[in-house]
């Protein structure tokens, strides 16, 4: 019997917007179905409709059957019963998904205690048992803790344990690892795989990471704009995509598979050993002293060198100090000790005068992670670029406009985009504007801090291409920060690996990926999901 059977599901908002359009898919017991697609394609909506969690006053059509029972239009009582017994959901962001005011124990046991009226002791012992199952050490101690005392990875384990409390035959995972860094993601996937194996649950697994989907799922369903484009066995869909969209998606997905040539690799003038390097960072350290907490050593004795025209990648898990390093280099943060030289000039001194400030700006520019927040929402794209231009050069209004159009053109945007406010631009377009704005200053060094992490894979590919092109055209020196090894591989000649503020390994990117020397680098590499032919579920993702 199929566990879940969705048949021509449609979902409309009260004023007529169709969010889901004829979704049909099914999940059999013990089977894992991956749901992939770009942001906003309707993955979450589909998943939620299984539990009857629909947008306020939305109209639905078609049917959703869970263990043979119709979910749409079910009586409140049946719905509660379904949620308690038949299916459970693991949400994307565990920090947002667990009530910050209540204890972990409360979160885990409340459904059992209040929903099924079981004794507290029983619920507690089950919670402890499940926490053990998701590999939480000292489970009993955690029950009294509040979410803010735990890390994201731990919280996601708790969320999974919570979902398993009712032993549901179907587990829905909505991007359960997106909020986590690579190594933690690997651990969570391992836990899920183990539970899937021991309980024989069916699973609907949502992700936008094709590699992950390929490594974890039996079948894959590809969605776009509220519709299903294609579905089939994981290997088939990803190995031989039919639909053009799927094909594009697959092509854009970076991999760290060895043997493949580096995409936009080192292109500009090769590293010129004789001249002074563009960036020399010498044993930089930075310690934060947050109020009421113990000091955080964000960067410790980190040294870097990037030759003129070179590109250096910085990888490491979340919190390893990558951004702090970048912020020190661009002057947003003062290092506690150590020196920074850009193009032979000392960059450590605080900019006091206006000319200092401008000189600073001309030596380094930066592109930030979040395209939605790094542009002033009120200022149209053209104006933002023009502001930067005119700050550094005396330009007539006409010249400035021409320069803006030229820059826009260079990043692949059109003149009409000059009038657009950031809101009306897509994430990729915004990031192009941000890059154009940085280029307007004509810096010697460009720092990109996770400049593509917030973007969809296909968009990410476009931006990466752009960076490659600019390097080529201008001989720009690039410091590229990412937590994604696959991305770094496409852009950088050399890479350093950071962990807890320290640089643990450095070397040419290709060598680093092929033969990592440090165990942490190896762990990072192992954590990256790789699609491979499935043999048995147990193997998958187990580290």
């Amino acid at each position, binding site marked *: 019997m199929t566990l879940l059977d969705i048949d021509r599901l449609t979902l409309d908002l009260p004023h007529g917007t169709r969010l889901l359009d004829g979704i049909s898919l099914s999940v059999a017991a013990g089977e894992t179905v991956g749901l992939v697609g770009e942001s906003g394609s309707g993955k979450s909506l589909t998943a*939620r409709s299984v*539990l009857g*969690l629909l947008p*306020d006053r939305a109209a639905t059509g078609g049917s959703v059957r869970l263990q043979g029972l119709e979910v749409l239009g079910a009586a*409140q009582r049946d719905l*509660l*019963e*379904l*949620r*308690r*017994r038949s299916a*459970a*959901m693991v*949400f994307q*962001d565990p920090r*947002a*998904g*667990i*009530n*910050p*005011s*209540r204890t972990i124990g409360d979160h885990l046991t*409340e*459904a059992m205690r*209040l*929903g099924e009226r079981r004794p507290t002791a029983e619920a507690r012992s089950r919670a402890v048992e499940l926490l053990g199952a998701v590999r939480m050490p000292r489970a009993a101690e955690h029950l009294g803790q*509040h979410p*803010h*005392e735990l890390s994201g990875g731990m919280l996601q384990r708790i*969320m999974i344990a*919570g*979902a398993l*409390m*009712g032993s549901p035959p179907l587990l829905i995972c909505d991007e359960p690892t997106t909020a986590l860094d690579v190594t933690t993601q690997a651990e969570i996937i391992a836990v899920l795989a183990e539970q899937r194996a021991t309980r024989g649950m069916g699973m609907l697994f949502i992700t936008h990471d094709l590699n992950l989907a390929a490594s974890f799922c039996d079948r894959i369903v590809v969605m776009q704009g509220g519709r299903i484009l294609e579905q089939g066995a994981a290997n088939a869909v990803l190995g031989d995509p039919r639909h053009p969209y799927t094909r594009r998606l697959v092509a854009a997905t970076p991999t760290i598979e060895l043997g493949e040539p580096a995409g936009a690799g080192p292109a500009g003038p090769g590293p010129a050993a004789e001249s002074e390097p563009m960036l020399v960072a010498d044993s930089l350290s930075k310690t934060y002293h947050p*109020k*009421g*907490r113990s000091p955080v050593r964000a960067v410790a004795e980190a040294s870097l060198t990037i030759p003129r025209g070179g590109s250096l990648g910085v990888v490491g898990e979340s919190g390893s100090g990558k951004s702090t390093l970048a912020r020190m280099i661009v002057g947003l943060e003062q290092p506690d000790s150590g020196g920074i030289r850009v193009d032979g000039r000392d960059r450590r001194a605080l900019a006091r005068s206006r000319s200092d400030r401008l000189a600073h700006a001309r030596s380094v520019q930066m592109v930030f992670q979040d395209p939605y927040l790094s542009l002033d929402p009120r200022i149209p794209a053209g104006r933002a670029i023009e502001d930067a231009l005119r700050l550094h050069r005396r330009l007539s209004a006409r010249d400035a406009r021409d320069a803006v159009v030229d820059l826009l053109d260079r990043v692949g945007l059109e003149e009409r985009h000059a009038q657009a406010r950031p809101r009306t631009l897509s994430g990729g377009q915004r990031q192009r504007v941000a890059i154009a704005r940085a280029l307007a200053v004509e810096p010697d060094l460009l720092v990109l801090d996770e400049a593509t992490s917030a973007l969809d894979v296909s968009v990410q590919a476009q931006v990466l291409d752009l960076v490659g092109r600019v390097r080529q055209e201008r001989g720009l020196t690039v410091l590229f920060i990412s937590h994604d090894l696959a991305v770094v591989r496409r852009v950088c000649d050399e890479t350093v690996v950071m962990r807890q503020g320290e640089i643990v390994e450095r070397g040419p990117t290709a060598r680093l990926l092929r033969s990592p020397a440090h165990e942490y680098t190896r762990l990072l590499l192992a954590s990256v999901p790789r699609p491979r032919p499935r043999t048995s579920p147990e193997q998958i993702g187990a580290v």
Partner: protein
Amino acid sequence: MAGKLGGLLLTLFLASLLVFFSRFLVPGDPVSFLLRGRKPSAEAVAQVTAQYGLDLPPWQQYLNWVIGMLQGDFGRSLQYRQEVATVIGERLPVTLGLVVMAGAMIAVVGLAGGIVAALNRGRVADRLVLIGLTTLGAIPSFVGAIVLIAVFAVQLGWFPSFGSGDGGLDTVYHLVLPSIALAIVFVVLVGKVTRSSMVDQLDREHVEVATSRGLTRATVVRRHVFRNALGPILTVTGLLVAGLLVASSIVEAAFGLAGIGSLLVQSVDRLDFPVVQAIVLLVVFAFVVVNAIVDLLEPWVDPRSAAGAGAR
């Protein structure tokens, strides 16, 4: 916590400076009130000035005042020729009763309104509650008092129109109408904060998680939405207290209640500074205390704040 306490004490200290020295800006001579419009002899003026310590330099008066207060001596009222502590002490219970009852009404009606509106967000009930609360909030207490007396005391005769009764239940009975008049304006504040705070929480993912676990709507609202929405509600409540104490002046006047609100207005008018200073400081003190309590409750409402982590 010690830092917070220090901050609150600092607030009190600054307030005491403000309260005390502002009076030296006041034109007019308190002595002329003491001698109540009669032909005073020069000696009488001098004697009375000295009796009330008004001949000392300001800073010395301030020191005497502060030291006196720390010993429980608030000075003497010029208008009542009596210890300020006695004058205020006799009137405080009425105001406290009024504030407590009004507070209870504000809490009940405001919370209920806010919750109903939040749970029916965007629907007719929401609009009705909002419009109702806004309209109530727009009725100044003095208008409310007049209408309440006219309708419920005079026309219908259900409630007495004046006085604070003989204690106990009778006092409660006497304070019903005044409390309503006082509560009217403030209900809207609590109602709106409750609504927006609840709406904010309703959209949180943890609410959805709880729902997906098969908890009933009521349980989810109680344990996850309301409980988490309490923070801003408590904060607003903290800010309300001082406002209630002062707004009571209007209501007390209309209902012939002898409380510290009407005493304040009257004392301002009569330049009875010792009383004005004591009441203002009392209001500030109440504000400080209530906010200290709110601060103490904060970790319970939001455990993250205990750890000093930025609450979100």
